[in-house]
């Protein structure tokens, strides 16, 4: 049944010692359920005690026509027995469910890597759609890799025959067959997946049975002798040491949603979320829409402007206003952000960055909205900006954003990106009791000497006054306000004073944030690699490898983009060189050079794809060489 089309590089096929980490990519048609397969494989990986990181990559189209190149959906996972922080540079294994999936993904595969292909899909029609003249399984073009090609479609059909499904429905189980095979390859337990399938198909038990049968069949297929010695060997990756505790996997989008809920609870406030759907930010709206029992009101507004404006209105009325979007939507919020700055109301604005400019690459990741976050408004309009570096970190950052917004009476921008939002990683569930509360105190009575809505506390924050509070009636707005009273005031001295006040209030936030730590390496030395956001993984790994080679390089990762940590300038100056890898054309670099006059050198990648570890390693090499 199975036919091993080619076994290239025979030298490589010998059984290898248990690897420290493995990268697997599942790729298929959008309809093939690759994201689901990846998700379940992720869970099983986590359960087997490996550390892991994932990278889902799907087309912009809802349902691209079957078999097309642009309709390919892929899910990559990197797992291992030690500290994993990227989804991996190049896959060791590529599972290609059709010709298009092979074509778009094979070039990334490691030389000598393994291709598993479903010959059932390599028919003329699909080959044509993938723009192959001849089947690559047959023309020798895959000679750099090992290829295991067999008719997964037929094997799946066979395995579910007894359930009497139609052909189309039967083939829908292909992904579970493949998952079964993958589970066998990496020596995993099937039970959690079986349990999950039972829950998922609770209303259609026959579908559950069929999927389980396919899963088992794939697994059995691996175990049988049929492919033994054909390059498909079982691999056991040892578990990574992990702190004891309760774990789950979490995507960045869910982590942000939960972090916001936690933040509102720690502030003792109801939350109001005004949003407008946009890829890849909608996931946060979706997650929060389900959490009404946590005091969350979600409002799908008519556009991004109404989304932020309603959130400002809700903050004005005493809720924690939150809005979230992606680059083009954030662009539309610029004017209203100014209003929040002028009226000094708390507001959390989340930007799940995607490829730009303009509509750009909606489903790809990028870090190119830092300029927009820090500088993108009319007037001198400073606000704090923080950036999450991983799904798990996004939870903490969301809480931090809530803290700053409510304690300093200011809008806060939280930057995340499409990669973090979609990727899942294992997360040790925090103990809620360990989270420090920061309850909000509304002004309940006029200050001595009369109501002063623009009076200042020691953090330079003004009081938060809820409409509905007797005796505290007052008016606010976007026109320059008089210090203290908040009345309209165009006078030169007042505008100067208020501009400085707004600036100093935001700069003062640096007093409440931790000093910048060196995440790997030491203070001072030849080279600091300085990153922010989702480049954490590749920088971390690249620095680890370089240090393993004995190179004098350290990794600094900045969470607080504005204001920057107080010690950062001195810290950066303690290195001979500073390298700043960013998925943009050099935006954090501008901040660092402006603020500290350090010769920060940019390393830029703007391809909609995360950095590869090797790319950063090479740049380190170049800086030190």
């Amino acid at each position: 049944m199975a036919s091993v089309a080619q076994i290239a590089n025979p030298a490589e096929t010998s059984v290898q010692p248990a690897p420290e980490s493995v990268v697997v990519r599942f790729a298929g048609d959008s309809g093939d359920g690759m994201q689901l397969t990846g998700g379940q494989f992720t869970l099983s990986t986590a359960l087997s005690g490996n550390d892991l990181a994932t990278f889902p990559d799907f087309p912009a189209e809802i349902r691209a026509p079957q078999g097309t190149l642009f309709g390919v959906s892929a899910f990559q996972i990197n797992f291992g027995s030690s500290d994993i922080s990227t989804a991996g540079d190049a896959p060791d294994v590529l599972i290609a469910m059709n010709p298009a999936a092979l074509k778009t993904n094979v070039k990334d595969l490691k030389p000598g890597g393994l291709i598993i292909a479903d010959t059932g899909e390599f028919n003329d029609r699909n080959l044509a759609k993938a723009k192959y003249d001849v089947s690559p399984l047959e023309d020798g073009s895959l000679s750099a890799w090992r290829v295991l090609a067999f008719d997964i479609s037929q094997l799946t059909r066979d395995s579910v025959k007894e359930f009497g499904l139609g052909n189309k429905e039967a083939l829908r189980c292909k992904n579970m067959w493949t998952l079964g095979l993958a589970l066998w390859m990496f020596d995993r337990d099937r039970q959690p997946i079986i349990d999950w399938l039972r829950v998922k198909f609770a209303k259609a038990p026959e579908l559950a049975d069929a999927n389980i049968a396919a899963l088992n069949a794939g697994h059995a297929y691996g175990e049988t002798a049929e492919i033994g010695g054909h390059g498909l060997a079982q691999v056991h990756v040892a578990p990574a040491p992990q702190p004891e505790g309760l774990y789950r996997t979490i995507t960045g989008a869910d982590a942000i949603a939960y972090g916001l809920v936690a933040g509102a609870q720690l502030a003792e406030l109801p939350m109001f979320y005004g949003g407008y759907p946009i890829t890849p930010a909608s996931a946060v709206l979706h997650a929060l829409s389900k959490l009404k029992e946590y005091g969350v009101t979600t409002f799908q507004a008519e556009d991004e402007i109404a989304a932020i404006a309603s959130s400002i209105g809700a903050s004005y009325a005493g809720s924690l206003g939150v809005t979230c979007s992606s680059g083009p939507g954030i662009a539309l919020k610029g004017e209203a952000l100014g209003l929040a700055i002028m009226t000094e109301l708390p507001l959390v604005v989340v930007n799940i960055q995607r490829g730009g400019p303009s509509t750009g690459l909606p489903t790809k990741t990028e870090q190119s909205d830092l300029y927009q976050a820090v500088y993108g408004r009319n007037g001198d309009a400073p606000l704090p900006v923080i950036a999450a570096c991983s799904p798990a970190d996004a939870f903490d950052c969301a809480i931090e954003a809530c803290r700053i917004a409510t304690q300093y009476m200011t809008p806060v921008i939280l930057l995340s990106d499409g990669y973090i939002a979609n990727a899942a990683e294992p997360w040790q569930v925090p103990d809620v009791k360990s989270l420090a509360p920061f309850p909000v105190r509304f002004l309940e009575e006029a200050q001595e000497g009369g109501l002063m809505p623009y009076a200042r506390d020691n953090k330079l924050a003004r009081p938060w006054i809820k409409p509905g509070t007797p005796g505290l009636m007052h008016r606010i707005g976007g026109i320059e306000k008089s210090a203290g009273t908040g009345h309209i005031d165009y006078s030169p001295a007042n505008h100067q004073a208020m501009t400085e006040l707004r600036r100093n209030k935001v700069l003062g936030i640096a007093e409440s944030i931790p000093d910048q730590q060196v995440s790997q390496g030491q203070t001072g030395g030849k080279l600091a690699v300085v990153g922010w956001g989702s480049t954490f993984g590749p920088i971390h790994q690249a620095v680890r490898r370089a240090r393993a080679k004995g190179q004098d390089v350290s990794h600094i990762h900045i969470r607080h983009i504005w204001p920057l940590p107080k010690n950062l300038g001195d810290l950066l100056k303690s290195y001979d060189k500073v390298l700043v890898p960013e998925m943009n054309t050099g935006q954090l670099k501008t901040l660092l050079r402006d603020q500290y006059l350090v010769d920060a050198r940019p390393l830029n990648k703007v391809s909609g794809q995360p950095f590869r570890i090797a790319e950063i390693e090479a740049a380190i090499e170049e800086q030190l060489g």
Partner: protein
Amino acid sequence: MNDMTPPQKTLPKDWETDQEVRWCPGCGDYAILKAVQRTLPEIGARPEKTVFVSGIGCSSRFPYYVESFGFHTIHGRAPAVATGVKLANPDLDVWIITGDGDALSIGGNHTMHVLRRNLDCQILLFNNEIYGLTKGQYSPTSREGTRSPSTPYGSVDHPAKPAAFALGAGARFVARGYDVAKQLPDVLKAAYAHKGAAFVEIFQNCIVYNKDVFAGFTEKQHAADGQLWLENGKPMLFGDMKKGGTRGIALDRDKLCLKVVDVVDGDWQAAGVIVHDVTNRSVAHMLVEMPFGPFPMALGILYDDPKPSFEQAVIAQNEQAASGKTPDLQKLLSSGQTWTVGASGPQL
């Protein structure tokens, strides 16, 4: 509400602030401000529970002059801000103050959606058919041929009809008045009484940039023939009202549209004059589009047929969805498939 002492009744002057009023002397906005300040005590409004939200424009300065909570937001966005205010605290009385430019030019979309959703609020649109604050450019309601700094040869676009727009957007309450009309407080009271979005177009005289454009019906000598004040259950009569109304509005049953008929000796039934039914949406459409000139200007409550309001529906759903669930954050964080890492490694 813990406050057990019944709130003292307010007086119009309790609704005045200490801020200098900054409209041009003679501006129609003054009269509207007075009408609002006269209405608020009568409807039993409380300063601390009242919020005026406005956009930008001369009209949008209004909140500074009312002793309540006030938010002078940005151009065109008042309905969106107000939606957040009301959803966050449905106990507040929310008034939206806006102009023809603010509500129908830059803010048209938000006006549409606040009406469609039917947020419980009062929307007072001060229509002076001009951009006052930016010094007199024509607005979406300016009549064709309006000469202004941006249209020195006269405007060429067809003007928007605010009340028609509101109905098209799904409004459940549409009323009209004008700045110095003695009936204005009654119109405002009806708007307040309506649960849901109440849209009130108020013709307002901008004496600097668009003086007297409404004089054709607001001036005393034109009032009788120019004003049709609608009352629910009453025939649509105008003209010499001392004689019980000498003209009326009837349906042309061939052409299926409205027409003006003469009423002889008060026998309006004979003339086929329509009895105003505030819940008749079909007739409301005809009334809001009735061209002034051949017809009088329809004033008062043109349409009033409440539907459930947005914030009530949101809150009801929030409560229902939450009922029986405890907001246990620890539980939320631990949701989904979890596993425990113990001394012996991970387990489900």
